[in-house]
Protein backbone atom coordinates (compact mmCIF):
# COMPACT_ATOMS: atom_id res chain seq x y z
CA UNK A 1 0.00 0.00 0.00
CA UNK A 2 2.75 2.40 1.03
CA UNK A 3 4.76 1.27 -1.96
CA UNK A 4 1.81 1.98 -4.25
CA UNK A 5 1.33 5.49 -2.87
CA UNK A 6 5.05 6.14 -3.14
CA UNK A 7 5.18 4.86 -6.70
CA UNK A 8 2.23 6.92 -7.89
CA UNK A 9 3.51 10.11 -6.30
CA UNK A 10 6.92 9.56 -7.91
CA UNK A 11 5.32 8.82 -11.28
CA UNK A 12 3.12 11.93 -11.18
CA UNK A 13 6.10 14.02 -10.09
CA UNK A 14 8.23 12.72 -12.97
CA UNK A 15 5.65 13.41 -15.68
CA UNK A 16 4.48 16.73 -14.19
CA UNK A 17 7.99 18.10 -13.93
CA UNK A 18 8.67 16.81 -17.45
CA UNK A 19 5.74 18.86 -18.73
CA UNK A 20 6.86 21.79 -16.58
CA UNK A 21 10.19 21.88 -18.42
CA UNK A 22 8.44 23.39 -21.42
CA UNK A 23 5.93 25.47 -19.51
CA UNK A 24 7.87 27.48 -16.93
CA UNK A 25 8.93 31.06 -17.25
CA UNK A 26 12.66 30.90 -16.75
CA UNK A 27 15.52 28.82 -18.11
CA UNK A 28 16.85 27.91 -14.69
CA UNK A 29 13.41 26.66 -13.69
CA UNK A 30 13.19 24.59 -16.88
CA UNK A 31 16.58 23.02 -16.19
CA UNK A 32 15.78 22.18 -12.60
CA UNK A 33 12.32 20.89 -13.49
CA UNK A 34 14.16 18.40 -15.71
CA UNK A 35 16.46 17.63 -12.77
CA UNK A 36 13.43 16.90 -10.58
CA UNK A 37 12.06 14.60 -13.28
CA UNK A 38 15.32 12.69 -13.38
CA UNK A 39 15.49 12.42 -9.58
CA UNK A 40 11.95 11.03 -9.62
CA UNK A 41 12.97 8.39 -12.19
CA UNK A 42 16.02 7.60 -10.05
CA UNK A 43 13.74 7.09 -7.04
CA UNK A 44 11.51 4.84 -9.16
CA UNK A 45 14.58 2.81 -10.03
CA UNK A 46 15.35 2.51 -6.32
CA UNK A 47 11.81 1.18 -5.85
CA UNK A 48 12.37 -1.65 -8.32
CA UNK A 49 15.53 -2.67 -6.51
CA UNK A 50 18.14 -1.10 -8.81
CA UNK A 51 20.04 0.64 -6.01
CA UNK A 52 23.27 1.43 -7.75
CA UNK A 53 21.80 2.45 -11.10
CA UNK A 54 19.11 4.57 -9.44
CA UNK A 55 21.67 6.50 -7.39
CA UNK A 56 23.93 6.83 -10.43
CA UNK A 57 21.02 8.33 -12.40
CA UNK A 58 20.36 10.85 -9.61
CA UNK A 59 24.05 11.71 -9.26
CA UNK A 60 24.82 12.11 -12.94
CA UNK A 61 21.64 13.92 -13.83
CA UNK A 62 21.86 16.50 -11.05
CA UNK A 63 25.46 17.17 -12.05
CA UNK A 64 24.44 17.42 -15.70
CA UNK A 65 21.57 19.80 -14.94
CA UNK A 66 23.86 22.02 -12.90
CA UNK A 67 26.21 22.28 -15.89
CA UNK A 68 23.34 22.58 -18.36
CA UNK A 69 21.98 25.54 -16.45
CA UNK A 70 25.29 27.29 -17.12
CA UNK A 71 24.90 26.63 -20.85
CA UNK A 72 21.29 27.80 -20.85
CA UNK A 73 22.17 31.08 -19.29
CA UNK A 74 25.20 31.47 -21.54
CA UNK A 75 23.23 31.07 -24.74
CA UNK A 76 19.99 32.70 -23.83
CA UNK A 77 21.32 35.44 -21.64
CA UNK A 78 18.28 35.57 -19.42
CA UNK A 79 18.28 36.93 -15.93
CA UNK A 80 16.55 35.31 -12.99
CA UNK A 81 13.43 37.41 -13.47
CA UNK A 82 10.48 35.36 -14.57
CA UNK A 83 9.28 36.27 -18.01
CA UNK A 84 6.90 34.26 -20.18
CA UNK A 85 8.87 32.52 -22.87
CA UNK A 86 7.69 30.21 -25.54
CA UNK A 87 9.86 29.61 -28.54
CA UNK A 88 8.23 26.89 -30.54
CA UNK A 89 7.85 26.00 -34.15
CA UNK A 90 5.33 23.58 -35.52
CA UNK A 91 3.54 23.45 -32.21
CA UNK A 92 0.39 21.67 -33.32
CA UNK A 93 2.22 19.03 -35.32
CA UNK A 94 4.45 18.34 -32.34
CA UNK A 95 1.52 18.00 -29.96
CA UNK A 96 -0.32 15.66 -32.32
CA UNK A 97 2.81 13.54 -32.82
CA UNK A 98 3.47 13.37 -29.10
CA UNK A 99 -0.09 12.43 -28.21
CA UNK A 100 -0.14 9.86 -31.01
CA UNK A 101 3.14 8.36 -29.79
CA UNK A 102 1.79 8.17 -26.25
CA UNK A 103 -1.42 6.46 -27.37
CA UNK A 104 0.55 3.98 -29.45
CA UNK A 105 3.06 3.14 -26.72
CA UNK A 106 0.49 2.96 -23.94
CA UNK A 107 -1.72 0.73 -26.07
CA UNK A 108 1.26 -1.49 -26.72
CA UNK A 109 2.13 -1.59 -23.04
CA UNK A 110 -1.40 -2.53 -22.03
CA UNK A 111 -2.32 -4.90 -24.83
CA UNK A 112 0.86 -6.90 -25.45
CA UNK A 113 0.79 -10.24 -23.58
CA UNK A 114 4.01 -9.90 -21.60
CA UNK A 115 5.79 -13.16 -20.81
CA UNK A 116 6.34 -14.53 -17.35
CA UNK A 117 9.26 -13.46 -15.24
CA UNK A 118 12.35 -15.54 -15.91
CA UNK A 119 14.63 -16.02 -12.93
CA UNK A 120 14.82 -14.08 -9.70
CA UNK A 121 16.98 -11.08 -8.88
CA UNK A 122 20.14 -11.94 -6.99
CA UNK A 123 20.47 -10.88 -3.37
CA UNK A 124 22.73 -7.96 -4.25
CA UNK A 125 22.09 -6.64 -7.77
CA UNK A 126 25.09 -4.33 -7.48
CA UNK A 127 27.49 -7.21 -6.94
CA UNK A 128 25.85 -9.10 -9.81
CA UNK A 129 26.25 -6.04 -12.04
CA UNK A 130 29.89 -5.61 -11.08
CA UNK A 131 30.69 -9.24 -11.72
CA UNK A 132 28.87 -9.16 -15.05
CA UNK A 133 30.70 -6.03 -16.18
CA UNK A 134 34.07 -7.39 -15.19
CA UNK A 135 33.37 -10.93 -16.33
CA UNK A 136 31.00 -11.95 -19.07
CA UNK A 137 30.23 -8.40 -20.21
CA UNK A 138 33.78 -7.10 -20.18
CA UNK A 139 33.35 -6.13 -23.83
CA UNK A 140 30.87 -3.46 -22.78
CA UNK A 141 33.37 -1.96 -20.38
CA UNK A 142 36.10 -2.09 -22.99
CA UNK A 143 33.92 -0.34 -25.55
CA UNK A 144 32.44 2.33 -23.31
CA UNK A 145 35.83 3.44 -22.00
CA UNK A 146 37.37 4.57 -25.30
CA UNK A 147 33.99 6.00 -26.35
CA UNK A 148 34.06 8.18 -23.25
CA UNK A 149 37.62 9.27 -23.90
CA UNK A 150 36.74 10.01 -27.52
CA UNK A 151 33.76 12.07 -26.33
CA UNK A 152 35.93 14.12 -24.00
CA UNK A 153 38.47 14.76 -26.72
CA UNK A 154 35.85 15.50 -29.40
CA UNK A 155 33.92 17.80 -27.10
CA UNK A 156 36.99 19.82 -26.24
CA UNK A 157 38.13 19.96 -29.86
CA UNK A 158 34.72 21.22 -30.96
CA UNK A 159 34.22 23.69 -28.19
CA UNK A 160 37.68 25.05 -27.75
CA UNK A 161 38.22 28.41 -29.33
CA UNK A 162 41.98 28.53 -29.09
CA UNK A 163 44.10 25.77 -30.50
CA UNK A 164 47.49 24.71 -29.25
CA UNK A 165 49.12 27.04 -31.81
CA UNK A 166 47.40 29.97 -30.15
CA UNK A 167 48.55 28.81 -26.76
CA UNK A 168 52.09 27.66 -27.48
CA UNK A 169 53.08 29.83 -30.44
CA UNK A 170 53.73 28.81 -34.05
CA UNK A 171 56.63 26.54 -33.19
CA UNK A 172 54.84 25.04 -30.13
CA UNK A 173 57.74 26.07 -27.99
CA UNK A 174 56.38 28.86 -25.79
CA UNK A 175 56.32 27.86 -22.13
CA UNK A 176 54.28 28.67 -20.09
CA UNK A 177 51.29 28.73 -22.39
CA UNK A 178 49.66 32.01 -23.33
CA UNK A 179 46.28 31.66 -21.64
CA UNK A 180 43.83 34.41 -20.71
CA UNK A 181 43.28 32.56 -17.42
CA UNK A 182 46.54 31.01 -16.23
CA UNK A 183 46.03 27.75 -14.42
CA UNK A 184 47.30 27.00 -10.95
CA UNK A 185 50.08 24.66 -11.92
CA UNK A 186 51.91 27.16 -14.07
CA UNK A 187 51.89 25.11 -17.25
Amino acid at each position, binding site marked *: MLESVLFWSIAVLAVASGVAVFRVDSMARAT*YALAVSFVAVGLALLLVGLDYIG*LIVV*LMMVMEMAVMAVYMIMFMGMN*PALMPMSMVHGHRAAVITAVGAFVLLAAGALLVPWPQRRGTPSADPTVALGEALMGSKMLVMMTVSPVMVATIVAGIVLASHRTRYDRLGDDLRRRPADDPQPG*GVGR
Partner: protein
Amino acid sequence: MPDASIVQVSPVWALLAALLLGGAAVFAAGLDGVLVSRTQGRLLLTGVRMPLVETARLLRQRRRSTLAADSLLWRTGGAGLVVVALLMVAVVPLGRWTLADLPVGVVWFNAMDVVVWALVWLAGWGPNATHSLIGGYRFLAQALAYELPLMFALTAPAVAAGSLRVGDVVAAQQGLWFVVWMPVAFAVYCLAVVGFSFWGPLAPAAGVDIAGGVLSEVSGPDRLLVQTGRYALLAAGAAFAVPLFLGGGAGPLLPGWCWVLLKTLLLLSAFVAIRRRLPSLRADRFVEVGWMVLLPVVLLQVLVVALVVVGRG
Protein backbone atom coordinates in the same frame (compact mmCIF):
# COMPACT_ATOMS: atom_id res chain seq x y z
CA MET B 1 32.34 -9.85 4.23
CA PRO B 2 28.89 -8.64 5.23
CA ASP B 3 28.89 -7.08 8.63
CA ALA B 4 25.94 -8.43 10.55
CA SER B 5 26.41 -6.17 13.50
CA ILE B 6 25.19 -2.89 11.92
CA VAL B 7 21.57 -2.46 12.92
CA GLN B 8 19.18 -0.21 11.01
CA VAL B 9 16.91 1.70 13.36
CA SER B 10 13.49 3.16 12.71
CA PRO B 11 13.21 6.56 10.99
CA VAL B 12 12.06 8.17 14.27
CA TRP B 13 15.70 8.29 15.30
CA ALA B 14 16.30 10.77 12.51
CA LEU B 15 15.43 13.39 15.12
CA LEU B 16 18.41 12.34 17.20
CA ALA B 17 20.58 12.39 14.08
CA ALA B 18 19.38 15.92 13.33
CA LEU B 19 20.13 16.98 16.91
CA LEU B 20 23.62 15.50 16.79
CA LEU B 21 24.30 17.16 13.44
CA GLY B 22 23.02 20.46 14.79
CA GLY B 23 25.20 20.07 17.86
CA ALA B 24 28.25 19.42 15.69
CA ALA B 25 27.43 22.47 13.56
CA VAL B 26 27.08 24.63 16.67
CA PHE B 27 30.39 23.23 17.94
CA ALA B 28 32.07 24.14 14.64
CA ALA B 29 30.60 27.64 14.72
CA GLY B 30 31.65 28.10 18.33
CA LEU B 31 35.18 26.94 17.61
CA ASP B 32 35.39 29.34 14.69
CA GLY B 33 34.15 32.10 16.98
CA VAL B 34 36.77 31.24 19.58
CA LEU B 35 39.54 31.36 16.99
CA VAL B 36 38.28 34.72 15.74
CA SER B 37 38.06 36.10 19.29
CA ARG B 38 41.58 34.97 19.98
CA THR B 39 42.95 36.81 16.97
CA GLN B 40 40.93 39.89 17.83
CA GLY B 41 42.15 39.82 21.41
CA ARG B 42 38.70 39.53 22.91
CA LEU B 43 37.48 37.17 25.59
CA LEU B 44 37.13 33.58 24.48
CA LEU B 45 33.64 33.53 25.95
CA THR B 46 32.39 35.90 23.26
CA GLY B 47 33.60 33.40 20.70
CA VAL B 48 31.86 30.48 22.37
CA ARG B 49 28.66 32.50 22.50
CA MET B 50 28.98 33.44 18.84
CA PRO B 51 26.62 30.79 17.39
CA LEU B 52 23.86 31.74 19.84
CA VAL B 53 24.37 35.44 19.30
CA GLU B 54 24.35 35.04 15.52
CA THR B 55 21.26 32.82 15.61
CA ALA B 56 19.38 35.30 17.74
CA ARG B 57 20.47 38.20 15.56
CA LEU B 58 19.55 36.52 12.31
CA LEU B 59 16.20 35.27 13.56
CA ARG B 60 15.25 38.83 14.40
CA GLN B 61 16.67 40.35 11.26
CA ARG B 62 14.32 41.32 8.48
CA ARG B 63 14.14 39.04 5.51
CA ARG B 64 15.35 40.82 2.44
CA SER B 65 14.17 40.16 -1.07
CA THR B 66 15.61 41.65 -4.22
CA LEU B 67 13.90 42.94 -7.33
CA ALA B 68 12.50 40.17 -9.56
CA ALA B 69 14.21 37.49 -7.51
CA ASP B 70 13.35 33.88 -8.25
CA SER B 71 12.12 33.14 -4.72
CA LEU B 72 11.29 29.48 -5.25
CA LEU B 73 14.76 28.60 -6.49
CA TRP B 74 16.50 30.94 -4.05
CA ARG B 75 14.90 29.60 -0.90
CA THR B 76 15.22 26.00 -2.15
CA GLY B 77 18.93 26.47 -2.68
CA GLY B 78 19.42 28.04 0.71
CA ALA B 79 17.31 25.67 2.75
CA GLY B 80 18.39 22.56 0.87
CA LEU B 81 21.93 22.66 2.29
CA VAL B 82 20.80 21.59 5.75
CA VAL B 83 18.52 18.90 4.32
CA VAL B 84 21.34 17.45 2.23
CA ALA B 85 23.68 17.43 5.23
CA LEU B 86 21.08 15.46 7.19
CA LEU B 87 20.70 13.02 4.29
CA MET B 88 24.47 12.58 4.24
CA VAL B 89 24.63 11.54 7.88
CA ALA B 90 21.76 9.12 7.41
CA VAL B 91 24.25 6.50 6.21
CA VAL B 92 26.88 7.13 8.89
CA PRO B 93 26.78 4.36 11.51
CA LEU B 94 26.85 5.68 15.06
CA GLY B 95 28.62 2.71 16.59
CA ARG B 96 26.26 -0.12 15.79
CA TRP B 97 23.20 1.84 14.70
CA THR B 98 22.49 3.56 11.43
CA LEU B 99 19.45 5.24 9.97
CA ALA B 100 19.77 3.74 6.52
CA ASP B 101 21.83 0.64 5.92
CA LEU B 102 21.96 1.09 2.17
CA PRO B 103 23.86 -1.52 0.15
CA VAL B 104 25.33 1.43 -1.80
CA GLY B 105 25.97 3.85 1.08
CA VAL B 106 29.19 5.26 -0.41
CA VAL B 107 27.41 6.15 -3.68
CA TRP B 108 24.60 7.77 -1.64
CA PHE B 109 27.11 10.16 -0.05
CA ASN B 110 28.51 10.91 -3.48
CA ALA B 111 25.05 11.63 -4.87
CA MET B 112 24.29 13.96 -1.97
CA ASP B 113 27.43 15.98 -2.43
CA VAL B 114 26.56 16.44 -6.10
CA VAL B 115 23.15 17.79 -5.08
CA VAL B 116 25.12 20.51 -3.23
CA TRP B 117 26.34 21.71 -6.65
CA ALA B 118 22.78 22.42 -7.71
CA LEU B 119 21.84 24.00 -4.37
CA VAL B 120 24.72 26.45 -4.17
CA TRP B 121 24.21 27.51 -7.80
CA LEU B 122 20.52 28.05 -7.11
CA ALA B 123 21.38 30.08 -4.03
CA GLY B 124 23.56 32.21 -6.25
CA TRP B 125 21.06 32.50 -9.11
CA GLY B 126 17.93 33.20 -7.08
CA PRO B 127 18.47 36.77 -5.90
CA ASN B 128 18.93 38.21 -9.41
CA ALA B 129 22.13 39.91 -8.27
CA THR B 130 25.51 40.02 -9.98
CA HIS B 131 27.82 39.20 -7.11
CA SER B 132 25.60 36.37 -6.02
CA LEU B 133 25.60 34.89 -9.51
CA ILE B 134 29.38 35.15 -9.75
CA GLY B 135 29.62 33.26 -6.45
CA GLY B 136 27.40 30.49 -7.80
CA TYR B 137 29.49 30.16 -10.96
CA ARG B 138 32.72 30.11 -8.96
CA PHE B 139 31.31 27.25 -6.93
CA LEU B 140 30.50 25.26 -10.06
CA ALA B 141 33.98 25.79 -11.49
CA GLN B 142 35.62 24.68 -8.28
CA ALA B 143 33.24 21.74 -7.87
CA LEU B 144 34.15 20.47 -11.35
CA ALA B 145 37.74 20.39 -10.15
CA TYR B 146 37.37 18.47 -6.91
CA GLU B 147 34.46 16.17 -7.83
CA LEU B 148 36.27 13.55 -9.89
CA PRO B 149 39.15 13.24 -7.39
CA LEU B 150 36.48 12.93 -4.65
CA MET B 151 34.73 10.13 -6.51
CA PHE B 152 37.97 8.17 -6.79
CA ALA B 153 38.88 8.94 -3.19
CA LEU B 154 35.53 7.40 -2.21
CA THR B 155 36.21 4.41 -4.46
CA ALA B 156 39.48 3.51 -2.71
CA PRO B 157 37.96 2.38 0.64
CA ALA B 158 35.16 0.62 -1.25
CA VAL B 159 37.73 -1.34 -3.29
CA ALA B 160 39.67 -2.22 -0.13
CA ALA B 161 36.51 -3.42 1.61
CA GLY B 162 35.08 -5.14 -1.45
CA SER B 163 31.69 -3.54 -0.88
CA LEU B 164 29.79 -0.26 -1.16
CA ARG B 165 28.04 -0.70 2.18
CA VAL B 166 29.37 1.63 4.85
CA GLY B 167 29.09 -1.17 7.43
CA ASP B 168 31.37 -3.39 5.37
CA VAL B 169 33.92 -0.58 4.98
CA VAL B 170 33.97 -0.22 8.78
CA ALA B 171 34.36 -3.98 9.25
CA ALA B 172 37.27 -4.12 6.81
CA GLN B 173 39.23 -1.68 8.98
CA GLN B 174 39.49 -3.95 11.98
CA GLY B 175 43.15 -4.67 11.33
CA LEU B 176 44.41 -1.32 10.08
CA TRP B 177 42.57 1.94 9.54
CA PHE B 178 42.35 3.03 5.94
CA VAL B 179 43.80 6.45 6.68
CA VAL B 180 47.15 4.74 7.33
CA TRP B 181 47.54 3.06 3.97
CA MET B 182 45.48 5.38 1.77
CA PRO B 183 46.56 8.82 3.00
CA VAL B 184 46.22 10.39 -0.45
CA ALA B 185 42.58 9.38 -0.68
CA PHE B 186 41.99 10.77 2.81
CA ALA B 187 43.67 14.07 1.97
CA VAL B 188 41.68 14.44 -1.26
CA TYR B 189 38.48 13.57 0.61
CA CYS B 190 39.16 16.25 3.23
CA LEU B 191 39.88 18.78 0.49
CA ALA B 192 36.60 17.90 -1.19
CA VAL B 193 34.66 18.27 2.09
CA VAL B 194 36.15 21.73 2.51
CA GLY B 195 35.21 22.32 -1.12
CA PHE B 196 31.58 21.35 -1.00
CA SER B 197 31.08 23.40 2.15
CA PHE B 198 32.72 26.35 0.33
CA TRP B 199 34.87 26.84 3.39
CA GLY B 200 38.28 28.31 4.12
CA PRO B 201 40.68 28.00 1.19
CA LEU B 202 37.91 26.91 -1.14
CA ALA B 203 35.48 29.70 -0.34
CA PRO B 204 35.74 32.01 -3.35
CA ALA B 205 32.03 31.32 -3.86
CA ALA B 206 31.44 33.33 -0.71
CA GLY B 207 34.47 35.47 -1.18
CA VAL B 208 35.02 38.89 0.29
CA ASP B 209 36.01 40.24 -3.12
CA ILE B 210 32.49 39.70 -4.43
CA ALA B 211 30.73 41.13 -1.38
CA GLY B 212 30.10 37.68 0.04
CA GLY B 213 29.10 35.93 -3.18
CA VAL B 214 26.25 33.55 -2.52
CA LEU B 215 25.98 35.05 0.95
CA SER B 216 25.70 38.62 -0.29
CA GLU B 217 21.91 38.96 -0.62
CA VAL B 218 20.54 36.51 1.94
CA SER B 219 19.50 37.96 5.28
CA GLY B 220 17.51 37.00 8.28
CA PRO B 221 16.37 33.42 8.74
CA ASP B 222 17.41 32.57 5.18
CA ARG B 223 20.97 33.56 5.99
CA LEU B 224 20.78 31.50 9.17
CA LEU B 225 19.75 28.49 7.08
CA VAL B 226 22.61 28.95 4.61
CA GLN B 227 25.23 29.42 7.33
CA THR B 228 23.86 26.47 9.30
CA GLY B 229 23.91 24.45 6.09
CA ARG B 230 27.58 25.31 5.58
CA TYR B 231 28.56 24.17 9.05
CA ALA B 232 26.27 21.15 8.78
CA LEU B 233 27.89 20.07 5.50
CA LEU B 234 31.30 20.38 7.11
CA ALA B 235 30.10 18.28 10.04
CA ALA B 236 28.48 15.69 7.75
CA GLY B 237 31.66 15.39 5.72
CA ALA B 238 33.72 14.95 8.87
CA ALA B 239 31.19 12.38 10.12
CA PHE B 240 31.38 10.33 6.92
CA ALA B 241 35.17 10.28 7.01
CA VAL B 242 34.99 8.34 10.28
CA PRO B 243 33.53 5.07 8.94
CA LEU B 244 35.32 5.49 5.64
CA PHE B 245 38.89 6.19 6.76
CA LEU B 246 39.10 6.38 10.55
CA GLY B 247 37.85 2.96 11.55
CA GLY B 248 34.28 3.81 12.54
CA GLY B 249 33.65 3.17 16.22
CA ALA B 250 36.92 1.35 16.85
CA GLY B 251 38.89 2.42 19.88
CA PRO B 252 39.71 1.41 23.46
CA LEU B 253 37.64 2.03 26.57
CA LEU B 254 34.72 4.06 25.21
CA PRO B 255 31.73 2.57 23.36
CA GLY B 256 31.56 2.73 19.57
CA TRP B 257 29.12 5.61 19.28
CA CYS B 258 31.25 7.72 21.60
CA TRP B 259 34.31 7.16 19.46
CA VAL B 260 32.40 8.07 16.31
CA LEU B 261 31.32 11.38 17.85
CA LEU B 262 34.82 12.05 19.19
CA LYS B 263 36.52 11.38 15.87
CA THR B 264 33.93 13.49 14.04
CA LEU B 265 34.50 16.44 16.36
CA LEU B 266 38.28 16.09 16.07
CA LEU B 267 38.20 16.12 12.27
CA LEU B 268 35.67 18.94 12.32
CA SER B 269 38.00 20.98 14.56
CA ALA B 270 40.80 20.43 12.06
CA PHE B 271 38.56 21.70 9.26
CA VAL B 272 37.55 24.79 11.22
CA ALA B 273 41.14 25.49 12.23
CA ILE B 274 42.41 25.69 8.64
CA ARG B 275 39.85 28.29 7.69
CA ARG B 276 42.03 31.29 8.29
CA ARG B 277 45.35 29.58 7.86
CA LEU B 278 45.36 28.91 4.14
CA PRO B 279 44.96 31.49 1.38
CA SER B 280 41.88 31.38 -0.79
CA LEU B 281 42.34 29.25 -3.88
CA ARG B 282 40.88 30.96 -6.91
CA ALA B 283 38.52 28.73 -8.86
CA ASP B 284 40.28 29.04 -12.23
CA ARG B 285 43.65 28.13 -10.73
CA PHE B 286 42.20 25.36 -8.64
CA VAL B 287 40.68 23.76 -11.75
CA GLU B 288 44.10 23.05 -13.20
CA VAL B 289 45.38 21.76 -9.86
CA GLY B 290 42.38 19.48 -9.57
CA TRP B 291 42.71 17.91 -13.01
CA MET B 292 46.49 17.85 -13.49
CA VAL B 293 47.64 17.03 -9.95
CA LEU B 294 44.84 15.62 -7.81
CA LEU B 295 43.24 13.31 -10.34
CA PRO B 296 46.41 11.40 -11.40
CA VAL B 297 47.57 11.15 -7.80
CA VAL B 298 44.29 9.73 -6.55
CA LEU B 299 44.12 7.35 -9.51
CA LEU B 300 47.56 6.05 -8.56
CA GLN B 301 46.27 5.66 -5.02
CA VAL B 302 43.32 3.57 -6.23
CA LEU B 303 45.76 1.49 -8.30
CA VAL B 304 47.91 0.84 -5.24
CA VAL B 305 44.85 -0.13 -3.21
CA ALA B 306 43.64 -2.47 -5.96
CA LEU B 307 47.08 -4.12 -6.17
CA VAL B 308 47.13 -4.63 -2.41
CA VAL B 309 43.65 -6.16 -2.49
CA VAL B 310 44.60 -8.51 -5.33
CA GLY B 311 47.85 -9.43 -3.62
CA ARG B 312 46.03 -10.14 -0.40
CA GLY B 313 43.96 -12.67 -2.31
